[in-house]
């Protein structure tokens, strides 16, 4: 619905980037609408960081076009730098400086934006204002990095894996902050390999694998289009080899069945019909059932159904 109204804040066409032996980005097209939070979701090595750094003007693409806020890197670099907020994956800010000194430095590069103290308040680091960066926790460092990205009052915010490596509490805290900034009308491009992060923060996501976009849409749309609403998983234990998968596929309401290492995953539309039918079928096949579980389908399930692999190898 908003597609017709919102213009593109970022438009990427035919992006290509190869390193010595890998094609990191392989013909990518993207469009991020003004005011939305767009997620690039994909496993490690999918090409997310390469894509984002090309958009940020830090890496030159082999071919392809990037138009950002209606501007181009080869002609409007200075103007773009003033208007972008950037958080890179794995930047370590200087450990010997305090939080305040770091932000005062970054603030000095921009012609406008909140003051250092204000930026500290934005990311709720007031009590750490005079602490050395080296003494901050992982979550506090990420919040400081976010403050460094916000200190120029950017129109467009790039966040590359903002919560990777953080504990659940620190991640939730960061999500709250990012949600606040979304409401202030900024456009955000966020990369992540956490599906729950993308589901929670992003209006639309593009799923990337091997340098290519393999799916695009809102999290709901993606889940609805590529798999059924529910996932049913069970383990057949020692008798897994005797399982008749084809018979499971014939059960009413079952859309797909995957079997891996004795664990069976089924995509199901009507849970209340499918589960009793599954139990009956297993009894008929004389398969003992262990560890039955069901959950609503997630972006992870979308990724699995598209690629046959999990997002993270845990």
């Amino acid at each position, binding site marked *: 619905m908003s597609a017709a109204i919102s213009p593109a804040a970022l438009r990427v066409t035919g992006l290509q980037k190869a390193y010595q032996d890998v094609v990191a980005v392989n013909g990518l097209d993207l469009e991020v609408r003004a005011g939305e939070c767009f997620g690039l979701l994909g496993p490690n090595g999918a090409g997310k960081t390469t894509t984002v750094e090309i958009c940020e003007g830090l890496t030159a693409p082999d071919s392809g076009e990037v138009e950002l806020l*209606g501007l181009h890197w080869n002609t409007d670099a200075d103007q773009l*730098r003033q208007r972008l907020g950037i958080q*890179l994956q794995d930047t370590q*800010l*200087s450990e010997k400086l305090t939080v305040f*000194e770091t932000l005062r430095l970054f603030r000095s*590069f921009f012609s406008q934006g909140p003051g250092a103290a204000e930026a500290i308040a934005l990311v709720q680091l007031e009590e750490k204002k005079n602490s050395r960066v080296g003494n901050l926790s992982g979550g506090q460092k990420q919040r400081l990095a976010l403050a460094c990205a916000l200190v120029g009052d950017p129109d467009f915010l790039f966040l590359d894996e903002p919560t990777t490596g953080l504990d659940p509490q620190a991640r939730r805290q960061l999500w709250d902050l990012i949600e606040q900034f979304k409401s202030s009308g900024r456009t955000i491009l966020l990369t992540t390999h956490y599906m729950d992060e993308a589901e929670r923060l992003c209006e639309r996501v593009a799923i990337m694998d091997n340098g290519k976009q393999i799916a695009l849409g809102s999290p709901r749309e993606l889940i609805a289009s590529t798999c059924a609403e529910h996932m049913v998983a069970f383990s057949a234990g020692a008798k897994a080899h005797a399982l008749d998968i084809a018979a499971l596929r014939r059960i009413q309401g079952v859309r797909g069945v995957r079997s891996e290492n004795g664990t069976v995953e089924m995509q199901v539309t009507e849970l209340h019909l499918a589960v009793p039918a599954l139990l009956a079928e297993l009894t008929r096949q004389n398969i003992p059932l262990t560890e039955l579980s069901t959950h609503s389908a997630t972006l992870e399930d979308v990724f699995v159904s598209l690629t046959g692999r999990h997002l993270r190898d845990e």
Partner: protein
Amino acid sequence: MSETTAFPDVQARAAERKTPRGRTFSEHPLVQLTIVRFLETLREPEALFWIFAFPILLAGGLGIAFRNRPAEVLKIATVTPALTESLQREKLLSVQQLSRPSAEEALRTGKIALLAVPGANGAIVYRYDDTNPEGRTARMLADRAVQQAAGRVDPVLSSDVLMREPGSRYIDFLIPGLLGMNLMGSAIWGMGFTVVDMRRKKLLKRLVATPMPKQYFLLSYVFSRILMLVAEVGIVLGFGAWIFHVPVRGSLLSLALVCLLGSLTFSAMGLLLASRAKTIEAASGLMNAVMLPMWIASGVFFSAQRFPDVVQPIIKALPLTAAIDALRANMLQGAGLVQLSPQMGVLGAWLIFCFILALKLFRWR
């Protein structure tokens, strides 16, 4: 114009951007970068030790070890009472009479500098190592004493006026050498390590992702270097003057110019050495490979003139040699800028060469 319609909500921000609030001096990016650079150095205890404490400890230690003592009394030996008696008249010799075997042993082991034994027909034989300056001195002193005891009268009268004034002692030679070494070390390490560390931590990449003017980044190094330089040079010179009365005979202004040019040259070398390296190990290997030959050849601890003539042009072309020669000429001979121009020329050439090459090679990531 298309932008106006495309981004209505962003338009207000864009208008604001055109009239940025005026900023105070301390909000200027160059000032901020310089402050940060300076703070980072001050908060690095190891760096402070190498820059400030190390040269003073070295100067103090070497100054004491090589302090000028009253002319040393040389130990010699004889094997006959007659010889002992005539040699004892020389105040600068300490004569021992020993048996022949133990005298030989003492000479071999360096306990005595010279052994005088009677030869055929009342002659005297001096046995000593002629590559040892003490041996040669002892030979002259001993022979003079023996000849005078035998009745020689010198045809020309002579007398001695003793000179032990500041400016000609080892410590006077050493302080400018240490100062030069310190200029080189702090500039190359200060530039090299921090740049490579920032590259390794992706902090350089983060900085170029901001609107920071890149030349400010370099200039901030220059300014914080100058701030450090004042302290660095002041401490070494002050220590030398206070403890050892090492003189500064040339003008302080030209001394300051030599230090500044030297420090900038070595900073440019540091920048060049750090232009590509991605690890601290790679960078320190490069820096040591460049600095070690200069520590040895450029005359920090002993005169570079001791090296063979064929390599002298190469040694003279080294930036540390130029810096130290200029510092010594200024401090000890009171040379002015005109006399220092060859050394300043060498430093300037290295500065331009290294800086241009560094800018060409430099990688922000």
